[in-house]
Structures are given as C-alpha cells and as structure tokens.
C-alpha cells in the first residue's frame, strides 16, 4: 500500500527535532525530520548506529518529548495532549523493543494482560479471553504460565508483540525488534509482523540497521543519517537506485565495488539494475549479440523485494560498441550506473 495524496496520513512528523543536553554539551539526535506514514503501510527507518533512529521512534509516542516540531497521529497533535490524552494515544500505539522489555516478575499471560489491566476497560474474564486469543495469534498458547526467563529470544519477542497488540492499537512501533535474534527467528518474527499488517491493517513503523529487514517487510523506507532523512521512498526505488553514501554503505555496495578490477582504457564497468518484467527478459544476451560488445561479469543477484523481482549485475564492457550497448540497455528499461573501484 502506498500513501495516496488524498488519504490523510496515520502519522505525520513535521520538522521534528530532539536535542539532548548532556554534561559535555548539546547533542542533536534528530534534526528536522518530516515524514508522512500512511495507514496500513509498513514504514522502515534505517540508519547506522547513532543516526537517531531510536530517538525518532520514541518521539512518535512521546517517550521522548520533541525539542521542536510536531507529531500528528490520526490528525491529533500529540505534543499538545493532556497527560490523560497522551495515555490514550499510547494505548493506540503498540511498541516492541530490541531487548523485549518484558516484566520478569510476571508470567507470559500476566505480561500480555498487563496493558489491559492498566487500561481498566475490560473485566477479569474478558481479559483472560483476550489474552488467550492474543497468545494463540502469536503461537504461544502453550507458554501462558511460563516466565519470560524460560523462553527463547523469538518467543520473548512474540510475547512482546502480543502485549503490544493487547489494547487493539492501530500502529505498532518496532525498535530494532529483530536485532537480538538469529536469522531464522528474525524471519519468523518478520513474517508475523507482515501477517499482522495484512490481516489487521496494522500500520508498522520499523527501526532497523539491517537492510534485509527492510527488504523483507517494508513498503517504504527512510534512510536516516545524523538525525536527518537523506533518502526516502518505495523500498525498491531506494534500494536499487541508492545514491546517498549511507544508503550505499548499508547496502554494502561500496565494499562490493572495492573488489572490482582496476580501470583499463576502453573498458567500462557498470552496474545494471532492472526490475519487474525486465528481470525475466533475456536482454543481456540480446544486446551483446546485437552490438557485438564483450562483457565480463563481476557480481550479480536476482531476488525479490516485497514480492517484486529485481536484478542487479555488475559487469565490464569492452569492444567497439560499448556506447551503443549502454544506450540499448537504457532503452530496454535497465538502469545503468558507472561504478569505479
């Protein structure tokens, strides 16, 4: 799902800034971030450590109060809310954490019941039924009486998800929710998040430093660097046409480029990026035959981002018709970008 212009955004951040005062002086963690996150989308915020991601996500539910700017959730100005209004808002925004942050003194069921008890809307039997439903949803019905310390990391995060969903939020904030998990468990948790997004229409804001996480579940992504959004858009676009050095670093493109052969006169090294239908077309051999150009392949991958196939090839072209070949690639809908070591 994309953010239509007519549709009001679920979350809107306007010129948001957060400066911390520390003993050594002022530290600007977030410096003027504006984002619009549509209802029902999975929005990724990616950046290297220290980029201000965690601060940014905490500004959305006002765990951190902004130094400047506005946070608007469902048309409501969060910063202007009364303490009671803010508590109501937080019940509509679930949150999960890198280190799960479960209450160690409570069982799995008690952890999930806790937000409902705080809310005080449901009676005991209703809470019990809701907890059973939530634990079933995350596949932990058999672990209700266990304590968090007895669970694996993936199970703990499932409890965290069940707890975050307890009050029926419309938004789920994920703060590096899979960074403490092994790759297999990460996939399972991401699959669960994608399922919740599809089935409940849950809007998900996901903070991560891992490109794979964004690639797997996000619709759109913003790249954060030193408190500023340096690139944003559809995941496929940002990934395949990464311009900013931070994005390229996160994609490890620079590392791959360092392994390329030394420049040789008459040889041009390019990265070809193509997506959708083009990924299945035999354009490479066709153009090589037509132009008589020689090519050697350095790197390549064909995969899917959120279901859309794409391909990316790094190759060196030589021979007489390098120029016409490059033009032919572009004519075939392939993006051509010269790369150097």
């Amino acid at each position, binding site marked *: 799902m994309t953010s239509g212009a007519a549709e009001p955004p679920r979350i809107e951040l306007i010129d948001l800034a957060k400066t911390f005062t520390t003993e050594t002086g002022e530290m600007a963690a977030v410096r003027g971030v504006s984002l619009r996150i549509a209802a029902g989308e999975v929005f990724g915020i990616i950046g290297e450590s220290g980029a201000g991601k965690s601060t940014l996500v905490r500004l959305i*539910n006002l*765990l951190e109060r902004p130094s400047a700017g506005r946070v608007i959730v469902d048309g409501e100005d969060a910063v202007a809310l009364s303490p009671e209004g*803010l*508590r*109501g*808002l*937080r*019940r509509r*925004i679930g*949150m999960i*954490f890198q*280190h799960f*942050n*479960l*209450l*160690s*003194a*409570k069982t799995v069921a008690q952890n999930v019941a*806790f*937000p409902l*008890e*705080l*809310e005080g809307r449901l009676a005991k039997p209703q809470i019990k039924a809701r907890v059973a439903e939530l634990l079933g949803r995350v596949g932990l019905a058999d672990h209700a009486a266990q*304590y*968090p*310390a007895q669970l694996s990391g993936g199970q703990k995060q499932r409890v965290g998800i069940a*707890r975050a969903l307890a*009050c029926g939020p419309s938004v789920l*904030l994920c703060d590096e929710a899979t960074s403490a998990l092994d790759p297999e468990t990460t996939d399972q948790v991401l699959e669960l998040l994608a399922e919740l997004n599809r089935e409940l229409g849950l809007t998900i804001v996901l903070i991560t430093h891992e490109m794979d996480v964004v690639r797997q579940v996000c619709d759109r992504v913003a790249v954060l660097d030193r408190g500023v959004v340096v690139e944003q858009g559809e995941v496929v676009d940002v990934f395949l046409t990464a311009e900013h050095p931070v994005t390229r670093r996160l994609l490890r493109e620079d590392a791959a480029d360092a392994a390329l052969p030394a420049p040789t006169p008459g040889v041009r090294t390019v990265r070809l990026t193509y997506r959708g239908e083009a990924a299945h077309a035999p354009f490479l051999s066709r153009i090589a035959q037509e132009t008589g150009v020689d090519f050697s392949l350095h790197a390549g991958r064909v995969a899917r981002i959120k279901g859309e196939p794409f391909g990316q090839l790094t190759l060196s072209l030589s021979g007489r018709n390098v120029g016409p070949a490059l033009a032919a690639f572009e004519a075939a809908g392939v993006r051509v970008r010269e790369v150097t070591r």
Partner: protein
Amino acid sequence: MSALFANVDWPGILQATFETLAMLAGSLVLTVALGLPLGVLLFLTGRGQMFARPWLNRLLSLVVNILRSVPFIILLILMIPMTLAMMGTSLGVRGAIPPLVVGAAPFFARLVETALREVDRGVIEAVQAMGAKPRQIILGALLPEALPGIVAGVTVTAIALVSYTAMAGVVGAGGLGDLAVRFGYQRFQTDVMVVTVVLLLILVQVLQTVGDRLVAHFSHR
C-alpha cells in the same frame, strides 16, 4: 551439662530471647514501613527519573547520610529524649524501638533505592509506552520487578537490626545483648556469653536462610 553452664539462668535466657525477637520484629516492621517509601522517594526524585527533583533528592540524601553516619551507640543516647517523649520510656523493648528504626530505616532506604536502580529501564519504558499512569508504573511494574532485591535488603536490614538490638541492650533495652554484657562480660560468666552468642548466631542464620528462600521464590530471572 548443668556444671558446664553453671551460671546460665535458662528462664532468663528464654525471656531475653523473646525480648530480642520482639525488638527485632517491631523495629523491622516499622523500618520497612518508613524505609520503603523513603527509598522509593530517593529513587524517583533522582536524576533522570520519573519525578526528578534535584533539591528534594539532595535534601533527602543528606538526611539519610547524616543518620547513617552517626554510630548507632551514639544514636541510642541522642535519641533518649525523643524516645521518652514518644514512648513514655527509654527502657525495655518499647524504649529500644525508636532508635532501632531511626538507625535502620535510612540504611534500608538506600538498599531499596539500589534495588530500584537495578530494574531495567527498558521495562519501565515499555510500561510507559502502554499508557500507564505514574502510580501504575510504580506499583505495577517498578516495585514488583525490584521485589527480589527489596527482600534481600530486608534480610540484610534484619541482620543488622539483630546486632543493633544487642547494642540497645547496653542502654537498658534488655534482650540477649543485655545478658551478654551484664553477665557474660561484666561478671566474667563465659558460659552465659557463649549461650547468648550461639543464640544470636542461630537467629542470624535463620534470618539469612528464610531471606534467601524468599528471594529465590520471588526471582524469575
């Protein structure tokens, strides 16, 4: 046996044991009742906490430090006028309880503060993110999460109070410490000394064991 413990007045020992237990129980209950809120206040008004109030925190901290730096034997004497005013006597079990509480509550409050600091900030943040009120955060999350640490603090405080009761004996509180000083020390009745020390040792052992069991019971980490 009777020759070995010729000087030991067993009914007197029993009486003294009860006095020690009464002093311990009474002062421990009041110490926890006063020290727990004080410890919570010390924690919550501290820097970067929910109700950060630097001046109040510094003031509380100063009072706690002053009370903790007065040697207990001096505190016993300093407290006599106040004890008289409060309890009508400065002697016996009743007279011992006010100085015991004043001596132990600041100590316990620091232990509570430390236990609360051990609670993972992320957990509190998660509870805040659920839309909890401050009261719900403190009673529903902070104190339950810190409970093992607080129980361990109660154990340490109870054991400290046992030795305080022995000192209180010197200024007329009665109990096992009083027996040890008056008979064991001043009259050279080593057998009385040995019996009182063994009883105190058993008391401390029992307190520590029960405390450890309770900590294990409440701890699910």
